[in-house]
């Protein structure tokens, strides 16, 4: 295998890990309360801006920006849950869809108003630049994002399967009335789920900002990938999002390189649709 082909695959894996990273929050919210958060891409965007502000004000890299973005977004998640989601969940499906969609536009244009339309960017070597291993170029910022993606996935998976908090959250997701009878407060659990999901998304945004441009509409570009990743992985499955993200990353890279970049989305989406035809619940989703 030529060294360039290996570089293509490694690049695809790192890209896929990033896709997984910003998809985990979306899949968690879906798994917990059957809500598709159309503002997800804009949560990523907010995380990016938090990282940018932290860097401009304090000159600090993602070591400070990422945790802070997670914290800010987690708070926003709770606010959004109590201020919007809790109420629209009682409404018809269309209200849920349009509610989060409206939130997306509100966030996007608030940032637009405050920061303007210019493309912003963090310095290239904020996370140690690029290094070479056996002839392969690896960007430290992408590697960091990939590593965090694995950790977040593992962490969320353990939280849901091994802790009592996780069991309580899943109980609410399964049957909120029954959970209530067992003394679990659905409101608290769902607010926690929103905090974790939005926090993970903010973290993802702050890390992506180290190698991507920052602009108010960036959520549009990234959001669509998150939806595809989550539905391929299986709605609600955190490990599924990781596997799906990696798969999409590698397929995108390979088809972009071998067939041509203009066709790569066609390849990815036709495989995606073909797969869903056989397995509509996704790779690891419950049927």
């Amino acid at each position, binding site marked *: 295998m030529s060294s360039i082909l290996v570089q*293509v695959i490694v690049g695809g894996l790192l890209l896929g890990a990033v896709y997984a990273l910003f998809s985990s929050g979306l899949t968690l919210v879906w798994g917990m309360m059957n809500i598709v958060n159309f503002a997800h891409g804009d949560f990523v965007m907010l995380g990016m801006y938090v990282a940018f502000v932290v860097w401009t004000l304090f000159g600090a890299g993602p070591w400070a920006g990422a945790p802070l973005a997670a914290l800010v977004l987690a708070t926003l998640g709770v606010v959004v849950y109590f201020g919007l989601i809790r109420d629209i969940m009682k409404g018809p499906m269309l209200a849920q869809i349009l509610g989060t969609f409206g939130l997306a536009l509100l966030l996007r244009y608030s940032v*637009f108003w405050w920061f303007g339309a*210019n*493309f912003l960017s963090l310095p290239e070597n904020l996370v140690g630049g690029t290094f070479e291993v056996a002839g392969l170029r690896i960007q430290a910022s992408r590697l960091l994002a990939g590593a965090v993606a694995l950790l977040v996935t593992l962490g969320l998976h353990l939280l849901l399967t091994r802790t009592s908090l996780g069991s309580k959250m899943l109980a609410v997701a399964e049957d909120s009335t029954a959970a209530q009878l067992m003394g679990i407060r659905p409101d608290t659990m769902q607010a926690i789920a929103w905090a974790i999901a939005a926090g993970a998304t903010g973290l993802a945004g702050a890390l992506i900002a180290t190698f991507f441009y920052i602009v108010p509409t960036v959520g*549009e570009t990234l959001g669509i*990938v998150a939806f595809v990743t989550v539905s391929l992985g299986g709605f609600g499955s955190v490990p599924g999002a990781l596997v799906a993200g990696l798969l999409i990353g590698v397929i995108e890279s390979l088809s972009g390189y071998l067939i041509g*970049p203009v066709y790569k989305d066609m390849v990815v989406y036709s495989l995606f649709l073909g797969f869903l035809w056989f397995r509509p619940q996704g790779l690891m989703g419950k049927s």
Partner: protein
Amino acid sequence: MRFKHIIGLLCAASISVMLAGHAFAQEKTVKIGAVYPLSGNAASAGVHAKAAIEVAMDIINNPHPEFGNFPLAKNAGLAGLGGAKVEVVFADNQGSPATGQNQALRLITEEKVVALTGSYQSGITLTASAIAEKYGIPFVNGESVAANLTERGFKWFFRVTPVAADFAKIYYEFLKDMKAAGVKTDSVALVHDNTEYGTSVSSVITSVFKDNGQSIALDIAYAVNATDVQSQILQLKEKKPDVVIMIAYASDAILYAKTMQALDYKPPMIIADDSGYSDPSFIKSVGKISQGVLNRSSWSVGPPGSPTALIAEMYKKKSGDEMDDTAGRQMQAFFVLCGAIDRAGSTDPAKIQAALKATDLKPDQLMMGYKGIKFDEKGQNVLASGLVIQLQDGENYVAVWPKANAEKTPVLPYKGW
């Protein structure tokens, strides 16, 4: 009941008086519609376009004797219409051809604009100008370069900017000169997005080069607003072209610059086709890792005190950014349109159209470095021209070609970071 009726009548009367007064006040203004991407992925370009038009409005509507003989500057408003002020109604095309078309329709039918300008992206200029054509409203475009815009047999469409074919010739001549100076320019690669702009410019460059016996070694098309461009860069890295011509909007251009650095890819020469690479936010965010990128332009600041230098200063004050080629071409088109309305002495679209057809501006009446402005029967400015500029220090473009207009000599190979 009776009292209510009287009150009602009084209200109606006062409203109609207000409306009439409003209409009277409006008589002294000329309404022009401007469709730009004020939101969406190209919003950066749209916001800068708006600033450019607003500066032009300032120059036209207020007395600016410091501009000397620059058209429309000296007195307040349009002299041909008794000093009428120009009012611009901005509309957001959101980066979508369908929205751009709807906005053009709204401006014409509801805002009753007498002429239109815009719309940045060629694909949107295409749809918006089709509506203007249908309603018989002049559409003056300053920045869209797709060839087919003036190949539709339109009667109401005028384009001031040089087009893809002009630039393709500039690139070819530039490369020929470089080759004569000993630079290797044998294999040329094109990287372009799949929008109207990207596909048409790349096909024009391909055909102009082919006509001159130079083939394109590699043609990489990609989907606009990419999330990742590694495969494009790796394809280039493998094929090792001597010259890479980039045709991309700002979002992708920034991603290319970042990815080239990450994958340590430096072609010997990069020529960028304006748009993304001229966007002030491109230079601010990745200029330092794109040192030596060549670009095309028709804008040059000129000596202090000259109209162009004054415009650059006003623009910087308004937008916070340096004047660039795209904003300059948009402003120039707006001046051409207002000049035509001024000469027509009327807001009747047909008279404006006739005045546009009769346009004959000389270089000293322009802010852009064109050889003049004169439209052919297709509505294309036949005197549009440009030069090659280079981002040598990563902060400011300087003119490097042709020699007559060059501030510095081109520095090769491409430095990057």
